[in-house]
């Protein structure tokens, strides 16, 4: 084991470089040396940036924050897959032991009209914030902490709501979708409230408003390709999309 870990790799990276939102971009080839299999993918990019900076070149801009799979900041299309080849993992959880010496890796930003490129691999995902502002909340005053059993929530519903609430809003669903649709994200957010008693008061208005905000950001239409579910680092299920469709239809035909 120890021997294997001491062995470092040299990789060829093809990285999307773009100076600014309006500048043209292109894939630029770099050699990165001395990559340990114990590094995360982001740490490998840190190594690349150190090597670039030491040569006096501009570092590659990429998003990251927690680096432990909980914040939703990291992104990247790695060899054409959102968050890389692993399932149920973010880019920061991808390890370089997945690769071997001499590999070539293509790294591109998440692409969608709703996710414009800011610089290099950084995209602006504030469209998701605006969709949340349209209805992804419960606006009842909750007062002081009340007794845990005063509102009964069936176990199955609580489980489903928790599963939906696991969404970290990274946007991999949009990036992976052939239609750049944001349905899995919106479905998760609508579901986590629709399943709980606290979400009922604004249920119809939420479904209509979040759908409207989603369309206004220029995301595509769902054609049930299910690439979103396959790419989701939190394994959000497409059954949530069916629920979103039900919530929308219900609200469209019955809301005041």
């Amino acid at each position: 084991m120890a021997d294997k870990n001491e062995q470092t790799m040299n990789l060829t990276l093809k990285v999307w470089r773009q100076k600014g939102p309006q500048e043209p971009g292109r894939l630029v080839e770099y050699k990165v040396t001395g990559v340990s299999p114990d590094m995360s993918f982001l740490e490998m990019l840190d190594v690349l940036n150190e090597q670039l900076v030491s040569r006096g070149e501009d570092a590659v801009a990429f998003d990251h924050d927690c680096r432990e799979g909980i914040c939703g900041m990291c992104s990247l299309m790695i060899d054409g897959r959102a968050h890389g080849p692993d399932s149920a993992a973010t880019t920061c959880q991808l390890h370089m032991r997945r690769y071997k010496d001499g590999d070539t890796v293509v790294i591109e930003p998440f692409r969608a009209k709703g996710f414009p490129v800011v610089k290099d691999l950084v995209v602006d995902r504030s469209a998701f914030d605006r969709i949340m502002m349209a209805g992804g909340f419960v606006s009842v005053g909750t007062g002081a902490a009340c007794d845990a059993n005063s509102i009964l929530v069936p176990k199955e519903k609580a489980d489903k709501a928790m599963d939906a609430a696991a969404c970290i809003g990274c946007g991999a669903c949009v990036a992976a979708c052939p239609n750049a649709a944001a349905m899995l994200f919106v479905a998760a957010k609508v579901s986590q409230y629709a399943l709980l008693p606290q979400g009922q008061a604004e249920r119809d208005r939420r479904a209509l408003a979040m759908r409207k905000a989603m369309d206004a950001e220029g995301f595509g239409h769902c054609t049930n390709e299910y690439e979103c579910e396959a790419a989701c680092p939190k394994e959000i299920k497409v059954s949530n999309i069916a629920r979103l469709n039900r919530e929308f239809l219900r609200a469209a035909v019955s809301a005041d």
Partner: protein
Amino acid sequence: MQATETEEKACCRPADCRLVMLLESSIGKKIMVALAGLFLSFFLLVHLAGNLFMFSGAGAFNHYASALAHNELLPVAEIGLVVLFLVHIALATRAWFINRAARPVGYQVYAGKGGRTAGSRSMAVTGALVLVFLLVHLKTFRFAPAAVREADLFALVVRRFRSPWYSAFYVLALGGLGLHLSHGVQSAFQTLGLNHPRYTPLIKKLGLAFAVLIALGFMSMPIYFGFLGGAK
């Protein structure tokens, strides 16, 4: 509270009219495409059942065809079909263009993680193929000269299928239709919000079986009467 007030006046603005919303919104459009698609699928089943009279010979088939042609409700059904096709094609095509615009700069490398199927990838291509087929099909049979149709429709069908090019095109287009349905039928259930851990796997299997049944069922006629020289 500003938001609530505008919301209350919303129905006066066309964009928030519920009917417009069902045709214009992303989800509404897909629900209409799915509904129309399922009705069209049902039509295909009925159409296939009727056409299989071809295998009972000229007498049975011509009798069925003339009974159908003289049914007073036929024009109603035909108008219904035209509407279903128009809704399905118009909204699906519009959605397709919006989806292309939703990713103005594409990926240099796009691999996916195994969500897509051959059917789901090719919906636009198979849809277009079915449309071309539909136009050719209507021209040859529905809009053939009335005298020819009424004299002996069975003979007309056999005569057309004797052309290998015509039959080959039929088989190809029906393969496309099968592919369209292999994704479309189960997809429509999901679009309509019908997804359940116990029933969805069954719906997927039945959707696929339906697609195979429809494709092979219709293909059997150009193959038997065309390539195998049936009804000599």
